[in-house]
């Protein structure tokens, strides 16, 4: 601009240097050099008349000359500052407090007074136009950076696509525009829309014609955005202007949300007519924001799709909810070896008998291995068993068929399991238990005695032939049979951290479970083992209790009579 730049520091030293009594004497001694000073300076008398103007000041105020009133040539803020400085004429020196700042034509100026003789005041002017512009630019840049940092963390917080859309329109309407509409790619024939105006977010699923908004169809296909000035706000369809917008639309930006290779949607930004239209730098900034929103939305959509698929596939592998069947209580608990997983190589199922006189088949087993791969094999075993249910009366036959199916499968893993056929007649619940290479079921008698079921057999899926002997066990009311996997007994932990839970502790825990309902038995065992493990690594754990209900009243609320609170 008019003068080369100076730092604030030199300005201050300049202001402080002239002694208070200098004035005209100084002017005459420095004379020409004052006139050529690189900063504008003017001398004004106590009545507001200009006394002298140096060359730079003459450039700023072309009509200023000796005798002309300051008010005729200078902006009001300088005239007022001079008035204030003159009132304080009796003071020894005008301090920095007498300084003023304001605009004059295209310039931004600082004016610093020093006192001359006879109440005259020398005004030293500094042009800080560029600094003011740079400061404004820096402030806006800082705001944008802060906004982008905030936007990124808020956008990335949720992997829920609806929530993500909500955050995107909230941020856009708060910082970029008066209202924002996010148009997601169509699901079926309809587009999910999220709108935000004045902080109010709405979600809609609407059949819209994207070509009704100039640039929207293109944005949804991933083409570069159409410049804002090409879009006529009056041409917007109703759905593109949120309900609470109020007033005519002044300017519109339509910007694509770039996703992972496919557009994650498009963002429509609206400003009211009383708000400045979008300028080019704002359009660029909207694109920068849209890139972040698009990435977050794509990640959320991908996560939702994947978790939907996982949930569907997993549903078949999750342990089932167990309940009372034909007057016998069944309860199960499961814990996968990895806390982040829900399935593993242990499994259980209960297949209710077709009627109260028919046996119910319960099975609990353990496939060699952990994690999803093992879980897939448990799924296979569970569905094979389901198919073999007509043979459930003959455990050995059932195990042989299952063994054959496993040997012929592409899996090379083997499994151990326990089968329990359960039938309740009058007060007695009869269990037929067969272990195929599995830890033996434990029976808790009503007096707290714990017995092992005398069954044995080979594991399945490894050898061409299967051998097994079954055990017949009768449960009286209040007695339970516990089926469990070796994840229970082999759990390492305890107060010392590295001791196996073992058979002895399991039996001791069970001894306290006489007379407890099945859910309570399972919960007790599961809890003791979990507490034993603490935060140690562990194997998959499965526990199932088969319990003959304790009170005889319970026949009235049996699973097949319309009891009052069977679940």
């Amino acid at each position: 601009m008019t003068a080369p730049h100076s730092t604030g520091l030199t300005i201050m030293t300049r202001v402080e240097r002239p002694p208070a009594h200098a004035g005209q004497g100084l002017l005459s001694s420095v004379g020409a050099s004052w006139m050529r000073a690189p900063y504008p300076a003017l001398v004004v008398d106590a009545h507001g008349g200009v006394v002298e103007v140096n060359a730079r000041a003459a450039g700023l105020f072309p009509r200023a000359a000796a005798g002309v009133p300051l008010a005729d040539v200078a902006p009001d803020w300088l005239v007022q500052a001079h008035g204030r400085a003159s009132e304080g004429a009796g003071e020894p020196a005008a301090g920095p407090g007498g300084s003023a700042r304001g605009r004059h034509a295209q310039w931004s100026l600082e004016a610093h007074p020093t006192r001359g003789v006879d109440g005259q005041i020398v005004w030293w002017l500094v042009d800080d136009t560029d600094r003011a512009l740079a400061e404004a630019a820096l402030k806006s840049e800082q705001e944008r950076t802060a906004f982008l940092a905030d936007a990124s963390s808020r956008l990335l917080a949720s992997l829920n696509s609806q929530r993500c859309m909500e955050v995107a329109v909230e941020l856009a309407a708060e910082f970029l525009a008066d209202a924002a509409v996010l148009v997601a790619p169509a699901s079926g024939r309809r587009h999910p829309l999220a709108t935000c105006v004045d902080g109010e977010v709405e979600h809609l699923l609407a059949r819209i014609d994207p070509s009704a908004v100039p640039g929207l169809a293109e944005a949804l296909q991933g083409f570069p955005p159409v410049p804002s000035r090409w879009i006529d706000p009056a041409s917007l369809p109703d759905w593109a202007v949120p309900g609470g917008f109020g007033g005519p639309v002044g300017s519109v930006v339509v910007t694509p949300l770039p996703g992972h290779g496919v557009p994650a949607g498009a963002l429509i930004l609206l400003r009211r007519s009383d708000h400045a239209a979008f300028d080019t730098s704002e359009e660029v900034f909207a694109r920068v924001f849209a890139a972040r929103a698009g990435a977050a939305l794509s990640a959320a959509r991908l996560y939702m799709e994947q978790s939907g698929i996982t949930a569907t596939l997993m549903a078949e592998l999750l342990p089932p909810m167990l309940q009372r069947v034909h007057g016998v209580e069944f309860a199960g608990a499961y814990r996968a070896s990895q806390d982040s997983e829900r399935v593993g190589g242990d499994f259980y199922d209960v297949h209710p008998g077709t009627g109260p006189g028919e046996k119910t088949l319960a099975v609990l087993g353990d496939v060699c291995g952990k994690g999803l791969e093992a879980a897939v094999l448990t799924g296979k075993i569970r569905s094979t068993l389901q198919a073999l249910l007509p043979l459930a009366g003959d455990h050995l036959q059932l195990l042989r068929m299952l063994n054959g199916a496993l040997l012929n499968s592409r899996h090379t893993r083997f499994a151990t399991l326990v089968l329990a056929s359960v039938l309740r007649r009058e007060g007695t619940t009869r269990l037929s238990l067969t272990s195929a290479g599995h830890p033996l079921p434990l029976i808790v008698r009503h007096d707290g005695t714990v017995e092992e079921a005398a069954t044995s057999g080979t594991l399945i899926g490894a050898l061409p032939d299967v051998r097994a002997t079954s055990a017949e066990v009768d449960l009286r009311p209040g007695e339970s049979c516990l089926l469990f996997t070796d994840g229970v007994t082999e759990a390492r932990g305890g107060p010392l951290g590295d001791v196996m839970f073992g058979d002895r502790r399991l039996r001791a825990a069970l001894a306290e479970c006489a007379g407890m309902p099945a859910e309570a038995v399972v919960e007790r065992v599961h809890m003791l083992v979990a507490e034993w493990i603490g935060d140690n690594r562990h194997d998959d754990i499965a526990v199932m209790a088969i319990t003959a209900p304790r009170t005889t009243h319970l026949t009235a609320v049996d699973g097949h009579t319309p009891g009052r609170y069977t679940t």
Partner: protein
Amino acid sequence: MTEALTAAEGDTLARARRELWQAVCARDEYAAARAVFGALDSGAGTEDVLLDVIAAVQREVGRAWAENRFSVAQEHSATAIHDRIIAAMAHRIPEPSPTGAAGTVTVACVDGEWHALPARLLAEVLRGRGYRVDFLGAQVPTPHLIAHLHSTSPTAVALSSSIPLRLPAAHTAITAVQALAIPVVAGGSAFGFDGRYARLLGADAWAPDARAAAELLGRGLRRPARGAVRQSIEDLPHLADQEYTLVLRSRRQLVKNALAGLLERVPAMRAYTDAQHERTAEDVAHVVEFLGCALYTDDGDLFTGFLDWTGDILEARRVPSRVLDPCLVLLEEELKDFPRALGFLARGRETLRRRDARPPVPGPDSSA
């Protein structure tokens, strides 16, 4: 609400409480159901029955266990009976509107928390008030909770914990949920009788009971603003001294050393059976865990509170609480470079000394 009950309603609830208590003492599920459904049939409100009958009796069960009037089996059976009755009651409450007009709330217990009943009662109360509720049950690993929240995006999460030992896990869950911009209301005795630990861990709200939680949620909770996960040290700057980390990481060695020391200094221990040794090891491990918890929260009351509670449990089983003192002395020797831990241990010993000078009193509720 309770104070607004008419005398007749109050009588109905008091009778139901009495009958339910007798039924769970006898482990008679049928009589328990009769008590509860009888009250509902006489016009008692579902919420009142849940909270003033079932929850009240469950608290009494916890007290009975702490005072050694109930066996483990009785306690578990009572809880199981209550669970079944609540499930059956759910069928009487009309289905909430599928839109979940009042909002969606996820109710979960902190990882490692086994007492699901308080959370379950809250879930039923909220359902009764028109919320759509996802009840995730006991001991929900935080990754499961977060995965659930990503797919459901509820308006709030209610987090329950009864054991102060789970506070570090609760802290992890609270910060992870808040990072999704979902507010957390904390509840359960782990968070302190006045919610001080809920505030310490930065929960958005704390409720002393299910009704208060429902009312808080009814007023609406503000969404936490920030998106980034807050790290534990931001809420708890004292963790920078590493005492918590070091004590927790070396806790097994601490327990082993303390046990070896006890064997040397307490001659009676040499005659212990294996089972007695194991109980002692469990007690020592508990002392160390609670010390760790006090270091995490920088709150000595957690440690002295635990010693008082354990003292009550021991005394109810005719074991003097001063048996804990040699263990604290040994830990003082092991942890001589840990000023905060030493401070808590000194306060703990003082608590035990004071106990010796007074008659035993009933302990705090163990299961509510």
